[in-house]
């Protein structure tokens, strides 16, 4: 009876509703986008009224907000952080440079396409995206969560080889990434 389809649906609905209204963002300013996060969290834009708040460690966070370009050095850390986060987890790419490299398209040290390395649920474009855009991005994420479509984590598990292979291509064989055992 508990595992019957309808009750599963209802349980999912309630779970998704809670997840939607409680989004904990990992405090990791990976790039210059970190400058628009404090205004988003403070008085004028106040993301906390939507249930968005910061989390100090990856274990407690739901959302990894990639604020801007990722250098190869940061990429390794970001992926480790992502793998430490607990399901369900979401990734938001913030800024043009996560989408197509932005103005760093010919830089030797930044990645150009974030979704080759991490399953991105929502992209927010702009350089720099305004706090309104950030809030709109969170709104979109909430919508996806409510519809049950924000399943980037599942994608990461399914295509783990693909993501790891892409990472390996950049960082070479010198840097040891620990195994991802979820």
């Amino acid at each position, binding site marked *: 009876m508990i595992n019957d389809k309808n009750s599963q649906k209802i349980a999912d609905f309630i779970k998704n509703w809670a997840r939607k209204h409680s989004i904990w963002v990992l405090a990791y300013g990976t790039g210059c986008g970190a400058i628009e996060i404090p205004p988003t969290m403070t008085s004028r834009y106040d993301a906390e009224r939507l249930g968005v708040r910061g989390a100090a460690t990856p274990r407690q966070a739901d959302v990894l907000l990639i604020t801007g370009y990722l250098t*190869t*050095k940061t990429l*390794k850390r970001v992926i480790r952080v992502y793998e430490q986060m607990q399901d369900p987890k979401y990734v938001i790419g913030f800024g043009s440079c996560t*989408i*197509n*490299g932005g103005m760093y*398209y*010919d*830089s*030797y*040290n930044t*990645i*150009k*396409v974030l979704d*080759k390395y991490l399953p991105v649920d929502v992209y927010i474009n702009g350089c720099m995206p305004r706090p309104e855009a950030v809030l709109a991005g969170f709104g979109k994420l909430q919508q996806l969560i409510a519809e049950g479509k924000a399943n980037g984590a599942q994608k990461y598990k399914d295509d783990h080889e693909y993501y790891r292979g*892409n990472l390996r*291509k*950049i*960082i*070479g064989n*010198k*840097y040891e990434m620990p195994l991802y055992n979820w």
Partner: protein
Amino acid sequence: MKEIKADLISKIKASFDNVTEKDYDGNRLDFHVETRIIPQILTYLKVNLGYIHLSHISCVDWLEDGEFEIVYIVWSPEDKLKVFIKTRIDRETGVLPNIDMIWRQANTYERELKEMFGIEVDGLVAADEFLLEDWEGLPPMRRDFDTEAYADETFWHRPGREDAMDVREAIIERSREEIPDFAKKYSR
């Protein structure tokens, strides 16, 4: 300012050989010196003449000449004068003397020179890596390192950037539209 500069030039010339100076408008004075006397001249400037602030150490890669030009910029709060000490070293075999016992922060600059240009600094004690991690191949700030080719080879590019050289032209081409009048006003 004129007197200060003349005084400085005479003092430097009296103490060191092979120094050529170049004067500029404003509070700037250049000295071209040999590489080996860099620590002595900087110590002299700092201790005897009051140029206590090392403002910058920069390096320019003159690929055509096969040389690096290293620029030390020191500043005196009393004279209000920027002094450039310039020296040239060979791109492949040049070795730079270490000056981090004169100014501690020079250590950081030298680490960067070593990593970004591959310049050997004599007697530098610091960690191997500074900004890059596991970097192999040509030091990236050398002019013969082609960053675009490296990026094309290493990273993926999302398609669709090729025609983004001028957004306005791309828009016209795509949608066959004219630039609206209000936008024309702001386009220079």
